[in-house]
Structures are given as C-alpha cells and as structure tokens.
C-alpha cells in the first residue's frame, strides 16, 4: 500500500500502516542524531523542555552536508538508527509518533513502538541527494555548535519512505528477507 501523510501525526493516521508499505511524508520533520539525543536526554533529566514539541512529531536521524548558497540543505540521507535505541523508548512515551532512519532497532524500541502506536520509517540509506530534493526549508532550532548534528526543523514534501516497524509488531527487516527466501523455496 501507498500512503500520503501530513504532519502532525496521530495514532489513528499511523494505525493502518504495515511493514513494507510506502509512505510519502509531507510537513514538519525534526532532525536529531547521536549528540543531540545525548543533550535531549540530559535536558529531560534536568526537568527542562525539549527544543521541539514531541507529541505527534516526526524525527529524522540525519546529519546533512553543508548547504550551498541559496539551497535549503545539502545531501540528507538517514544515519543508522540503532545508535539512538537507548534514548528512544523515553521519547516515544512522551509522544514521539514517527522515527525516520535506517537499520535494525532493539527489542525495547520495537516494543515501545507497539505500545505507543508509533512507526519507524526507512529512508533509503546512501540516497542523500535524492532525499535532499524533498526538503523545501531547513532551519537550525537548537545547538548550532553541533554542526551537522544540530537540531533542525525541516519542511518536507513527498519524502519517499518505507514502513520498517509498524504499530502492530511488523518488522520489514524480518518479513522482507523471509518473504523473498520463501519465494525462492530456500526456507
């Protein structure tokens, strides 16, 4: 199936998605990767407020290349999401609806995705130029000292994504290869 979704995202909007479906995402997407996650965790520990509202938000694990003059962003493909696993269940419990990245997640993250009715979407790893073309606006909203790891607010249009983890326990990294191997009679 193919879905066009607009942020902010509700549980009801994400419920029909299944691992392997295609999503074209439009609206606001926030960026954070390793260093920004560490700072967000420290802020929450100190009782502070995060630089963006988590409820219904989409979070993209990305560290773009510097933008050329007149362009919103440089190449902007996903980074490996598993490095953020330790921070993720807490953010999902606080209302984070959607994560965008690449690569396997921990059992705790999968469980938390189901519990909170969230989704983990895959952007094509290494397709930095293609994904940059979906970004209409980009502004740094926190921690500019982190450079490519600073938190950015992106406005995206029809970002092509694949459902990796759905709210019903589906995991494309398990079901996708298994379906292919079954079709080959190798399983």
């Amino acid at each position, binding site marked *: 199936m193919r879905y066009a979704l607009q942020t902010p995202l509700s549980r009801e909007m994400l419920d029909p998605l299944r691992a*392997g479906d295609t999503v074209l995402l439009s609206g606001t997407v926030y960026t954070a990767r390793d*260093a920004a996650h560490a700072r967000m965790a420290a802020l929450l520990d100190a009782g502070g407020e995060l630089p963006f509202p988590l409820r219904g938000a989409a979070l993209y694990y*990305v*560290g*773009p*290349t*510097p*933008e*050329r003059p007149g*362009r919103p962003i*440089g*190449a*902007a*493909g996903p*980074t*490996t999401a*598993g490095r953020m696993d330790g921070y993720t269940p807490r953010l999902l419990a606080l209302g984070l609806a959607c994560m965008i990245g*690449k*690569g*396997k997640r921990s059992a705790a993250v999968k469980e938390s995705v189901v519990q909170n009715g969230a989704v983990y979407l*895959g952007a*094509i*790893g*290494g*397709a*930095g*130029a*293609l994904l*940059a*073309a979906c970004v209409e606006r980009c502004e740094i909203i926190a921690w500019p000292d982190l*450079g*490519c790891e600073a938190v950015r607010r992106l406005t995206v249009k029809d970002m*092509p994504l*694949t459902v990796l983890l759905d709210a019903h326990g589906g995991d*494309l*990294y398990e*079901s*996708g*290869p*298994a*379906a*292919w*191997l079954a*079709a*080959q009679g*190798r399983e």
Partner: protein
Amino acid sequence: MSVRTIPAAAITQTVERLCIEANTQLPADVRAALDHAAATEPWPLARQTLGLLQQNLCAARENDLPICQDTGMACVFLELGQDAHIEGDLAAAVDEGVRRGYEKAYLRRSVTADPLRRVNTGDNTPAFLTVHLVPGSGCRVTVVPKGAGSENMSRLAMLKPADGVQGVKAFVLETVRLAGSNPCPPIVLGIGIGGTFDGCAALAKRALLRPLDVPNKDPRYAALEAELLEAVNALGIGPQGFGGKTTCLGVAIEQRPTHVACLPVAVNVSCHVTRRAAADV
C-alpha cells in the same frame, strides 16, 4: 638513478580534487555493478529500491550534491616511488588537500578530534594516510572517503589455522548477517586474510581499492571471491535489508603470509556508495 622532486603543494592540489571527485561521482565499476543488479533483480521492492539508488546518482549530478551525506573519513593511499622526494611536509600537504576539498565542495565534516572527548575538528582532518613505497619515482594518490554506517559493521577474527577456508567463509557470512540492513546494502566487501592482527585489517581496507570487475590474481582466491559473493547474496538480505537477490555488489580479497599459528581474517564492510578516486602526481 635520478631523484624526482615533487612539491608538497602538488600533492595538496591532487588530494583536494580527488576528495571532490570521489564524493560526487561513483567509480565506473561500482556504477556498472549497481546497474546490472537493478536490471536483474526480480523482487519488486528490491527493484524499486535499486531504482531509487540509480535516481540518487542522477540527483547528485544534477544538483551538484555529494552522493551520500556521510562524506566519510578521508582515507588517502599513496604509492610513492622510492626515487621520489617530497619537498615539504607530506602529511600536512595531504591534510591541507582534504581541508580544501571538503570546504570547497560543501562536504560534511565528520571527524572527531578525540574518540572519547567527541569534539569535531571542523575541517574533516586529519586524513587517514597510508604510504606504500614502490620502485620508481611515481606518486599515485587514491582517496577513499569511508562512511561510518558500513565501517561500524566491520569485524576481525584471529581464527585457528585448523579453521581453514571453511572458518573464513563462516566468519564472513556471520559478519554480513550481523550487519543486516545497517551498512546500506547492497554492500561491497573488502577482506584481508593473513598477515598480522593490524596488518590484516589494513589488507581488508586495501581490498576496497580494487575495481569490482578485477578478480584476485591467484585463481584460488579469485574462486573464493566468487563463491563468497554468491553465498552472501543467497542470504536474502537484499537492497537496504528489505529482502531480495541483491545483497552484495562485489567481494575483493587480499592475502599475505602469516605465522604458522595464525589465521587472521578481517572484513571491511562498504556500502553501495563505495567511493574511490585516483590520480598520478
């Protein structure tokens, strides 16, 4: 014997140019392997994904962008003739080339000055420089920007000699299975067999310099490359780990003599954006 003098500034210029070229144009052999995979992949989601990777290469060219946002650590290999004399500071010249190339082409600075303090150096230096002395007076420079998604999935094992080629194969397949979707498949594998603990890892990285359509010169190792390629593709991980026929675009093995008690094997995993650019100074 005459000594050829090479000004360090010439090295800087070449490194600068190669950093930009490597990050914006996929080597012809990697592109050909990707096109072949896209044309022969039967699984629909896998074919669609490989199509997006081809579109990405076009988008990079049309919009003057790097192919991937992880423009990597700048691994620089120098084949330096022993009759060549570098006038100036070689390491500083290479770093300056990296600094200029990454600045000029808006490439990402991804290097942290210290592994525990984690402060970005801000200019993607230092370069990771390997110099090999060779006969003659030439100077061949190869720049290999290496991304972390695949670098992090790389592994090394000190096998027992009794483990033999079966042990090597099992370790390579285990490495690919553990890596799964993380290194951005379809992957390329550089494999080192033999040597010392540290030398084996260097062999694996060096194997990534060989074009995918050039097999190992030793027929036994060439056959092992072909066998491993087939075995890895039979895992069914597929492009991006979504399942399919295409998990790996190429396998290159480099082997060296080793101790009677040793069988080191190192697997340096690389992604579908396996980049390298080379030129003579």
